[in-house]
């Protein structure tokens, strides 16, 4: 599996875990923590184009 996909999941894990903790009243959604979530989402987002490239490489249609 690609290292990038792995990285995307790690960033999402940070975002998901924190937001759930806010929902469940486990952690307070301080500006710092919200910043952590936003940064994690931005990092995941930044990796998406590279993921797309990897995906497409395997499915290049034959040249006409």
């Amino acid at each position: 599996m690609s290292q990038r996909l792995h990285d995307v999941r790690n960033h999402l894990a940070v975002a998901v875990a924190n937001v759930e903790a806010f929902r469940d009243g486990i952690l307070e959604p301080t500006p710092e923590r919200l910043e952590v979530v936003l940064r994690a989402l931005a990092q995941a987002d930044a990796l998406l184009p590279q993921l797309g490239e990897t995906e497409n490489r395997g499915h290049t249609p034959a040249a006409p």
Partner: protein
Amino acid sequence: MNLLLRGPIECGGRAEGGFRTKPNGVRTVERSARKVLVVDDEPALIEVLAGYLEGEGFTVVRAADGPGAVAAFEAEQPDLVLLDLSLPVFPGTEVLRRIRALRDVPVIMLTARTDEIDRVLGLELGADDYVGKPFSPRELVARVKTVLRRSERPTVSTGRQRRVGDVVIDATAHEVRVAGKPVTLTPTQFKLLDILAEHVGQTLTREQLLDRLSTDADVFDRTLDRHIANLRARIERDPANPRYVVTVFGVGYKMVEPR
């Protein structure tokens, strides 16, 4: 206990070998509190897990890299380890190998790599369970409790052997032999085999198996298939065409005497 006012943790992992003696330096009365070692290189994730676990009355020890995790394991004697697979210095798999050599403590792996799951749950590493990232921290804490409950249940049976075909299960010695050759199983695999062997020829539903493994059915449903696959890999000549542990389609599994 006020959960909302917990400040940010200092995750001391990288700088000082990855563990702190006690969160907040408090030595409390909780002599019997279960201690969980949480290992991840992402402080924001550790903070969340610590929040949930401490909210449930667990004591939390933190580590952020491979060496820190091993040091914390030795120093703190945790009751359970939550272990991320990718860590700085050396990976979670190596941590697992080293702590398994020290003491048999339940380990739940956290991983973003689905391609590693078989290896992690399998004999090579023998983690008790895994959780794929991203995960629900609430669900993870439920698994922690389940795995602890399972591991703390004392083994009831002593002095008995079961034999099914060439498979001999010795519950006293915690040994399994296939055609006379010793086979090493993880605690979960052993228990699964023992349950199946106790009911030779009888189909056990997934529900029954999960129940007997004293696990949470919702949570462990997919994990059961992994454990069955890993068990087959250990005891079957051809795991793809099992002779002992057979699938009863749509129902569950049963152990049979091979013909």
